[in-house]
């Protein structure tokens, strides 16, 4: 089976410290890693032990609904690992083999893992509807981790790890370019408002460390501008670290040791400027990584972590907002709604920023993923990505004429516009929630 993405080559994986295990040693290495996870990742054992194949998850999974590929049915996807687990770690599987849902590790095992665990968006919608709460994302995270530990990963993930090591952000933006971008955005705000609104980079002795997505310094300028205007209006002492210009943490999506390193960078950056508050920008999985795993990766830490939408919501009543004449809806990033407790905050903000806020169906913790979740943004997977995005497109189209689609996550911002265009919608404005805050805030006249 040929995986649908470019796979990183031996010299490439070695360059990020995850050398390829020789073919003949793969089985031993994979079983050893799986054995390690049995003790370090107890949640994985719950997911592998308990499935009854009731089939409930099939109709809840946008990946299966979009691709109609059997292995994208969550129970079948998890079975790719479950059957190996049973064969080598349970007495029933060892004794009765296939009759007890166990399979031998064979020449196709890992290419199937690579193919199908990279068609799971780790959105956790299956867990929401599973009577046992089985969360396939946990299995996907474990499988991708094991694969990368033996040197098997998409080129896309490897390339991002290279950029992260070199510059501290996924895009590979060097420090002088970060400063140049910040100055450009300051100029934009000056032209618009006549005010001197700063985007301070690496400012020592700052109370707040703001962590934007690096894409906010390339495509999603208005998200960054919205946050800068908010901080300006509140008069807080804040900065952005050039060493971690990245709310995303792709380690969560392919290698848990890489996730830990990223999180420790975050701690170092906050400690360096003496920040007591770290505010994460619009990024779904990065919020999950920062919120849920900072203690595990970097404890003890001397700062609080909040999300920009939570922070903005806390100050909403004070802001000089004038509602924009828009009919707008919100796409809930999966990691906010099902893993991050950012659900009502963006709604309150949007109702304060636009005249007509409408809900898509389903929404909140029942929302469908954009189809790009967990970093499935590879160009070479475009055909599959469009199938993964089908449910989202249907949800948006069902709302009729819209002016704005808010999608406060950089992966969603990269995926949804392509999906909407593919399904015939190309006249819709799309962006973040902070973009609307920036546009609705009255800060002086040019």
């Amino acid at each position, binding site marked *: 089976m040929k995986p649908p993405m470019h796979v990183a080559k031996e010299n490439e994986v070695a360059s990020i410290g995850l050398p390829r295990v020789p073919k003949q040693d793969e089985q031993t290495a994979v079983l050893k890693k799986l054995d390690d996870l049995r003790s370090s990742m107890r949640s994985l054992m719950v997911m592998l032990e308990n499935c009854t194949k009731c089939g409930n998850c099939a109709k809840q999974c946008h990946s299966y609904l979009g691709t109609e590929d059997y292995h994208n049915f969550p129970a079948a996807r998890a079975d790719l690992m479950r059957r190996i687990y049973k064969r080598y770690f349970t007495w029933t599987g060892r004794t009765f083999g296939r009759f007890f849902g166990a399979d031998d590790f064979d020449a196709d095992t890992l290419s199937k893992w690579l193919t199908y665990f990279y068609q799971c968006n780790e959105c956790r919608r299956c867990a929401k509807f599973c009577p046992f709460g089985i969360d396939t994302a946990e299995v996907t995270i474990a499988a991708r981790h094991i694969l990368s530990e033996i040197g098997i990963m998409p080129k*896309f993930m490897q390339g991002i790890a290279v950029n992260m090591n070199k510059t501290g952000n996924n895009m*590979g933006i060097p420090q002088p370019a970060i400063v140049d971008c910040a100055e450009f955005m300051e100029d934009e705000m000056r032209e618009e408002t006549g005010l001197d609104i700063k985007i301070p980079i690496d400012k020592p002795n700052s109370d707040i460390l703001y962590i934007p*997505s*690096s*894409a906010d310094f390339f495509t999603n300028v208005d998200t960054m501008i919205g946050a800068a205007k908010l901080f300006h209006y509140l008069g807080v002492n804040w900065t952005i670290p050039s060493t971690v210009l990245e709310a995303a943490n792709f380690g969560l999506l392919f290698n848990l040791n890489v996730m830990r390193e990223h999180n420790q960078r975050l701690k170092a950056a906050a400690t360096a400027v003496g920040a007591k508050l770290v505010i994460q920008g619009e990024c779904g999985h990065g919020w999950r990584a920062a919120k849920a795993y900072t203690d595990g990766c970097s404890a003890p830490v001397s700062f609080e972590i909040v999300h920009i939408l939570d922070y903005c919501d806390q100050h909403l009543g004070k802001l000089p907002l004038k509602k924009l004449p828009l009919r707008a809806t919100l796409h809930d990033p999966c990691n906010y709604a099902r893993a991050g407790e950012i659900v009502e905050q963006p709604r309150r903000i949007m109702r304060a920023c636009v005249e007509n806020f409408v809900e898509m169906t389903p929404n909140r913790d029942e929302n469908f993923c954009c189809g790009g979740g967990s970093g499935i943004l590879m160009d*070479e997977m475009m055909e599959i990505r469009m199938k993964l995005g089908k449910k989202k497109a249907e949800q948006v189209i069902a709302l009729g004429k819209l002016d704005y689609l808010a999608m406060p996550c950089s992966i969603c911002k990269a995926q949804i516009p392509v999906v909407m265009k593919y399904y015939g919608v190309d006249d819709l404005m799309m962006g973040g929630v902070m973009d609307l805050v920036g546009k609705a805030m009255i800060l002086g006249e040019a």
Partner: protein
Amino acid sequence: MSMVEINGQQIEIDEDGFIVDPAVWNEGLVSYFAKQEEVPELTEDHWKVINYLRQYFKQFGIAPMIRKLCKDTGFTLKEIYELFPSGPAKGACKLAGLPKPTGCV
């Protein structure tokens, strides 16, 4: 990665068809990449964008923000897409010999 021969020169390109080493780029290579990116004819406007990207990359080692590219060249994003159908990050960067922008883009 693979090697392609363009104007008698062996050029290494990556899986997405981008030049691996931006230092080997020269103007003679652009028409080859233009064909790959469905740019039928290279006009003065194309060169304005390409030269801007080259200059920014030389100074900063990365592609400029899309809005800065538009502002400094005087083209709207729509016009950039008309010039380079796969967009500023993919088509324009490929013709200018920049690495493919990666991450959440």
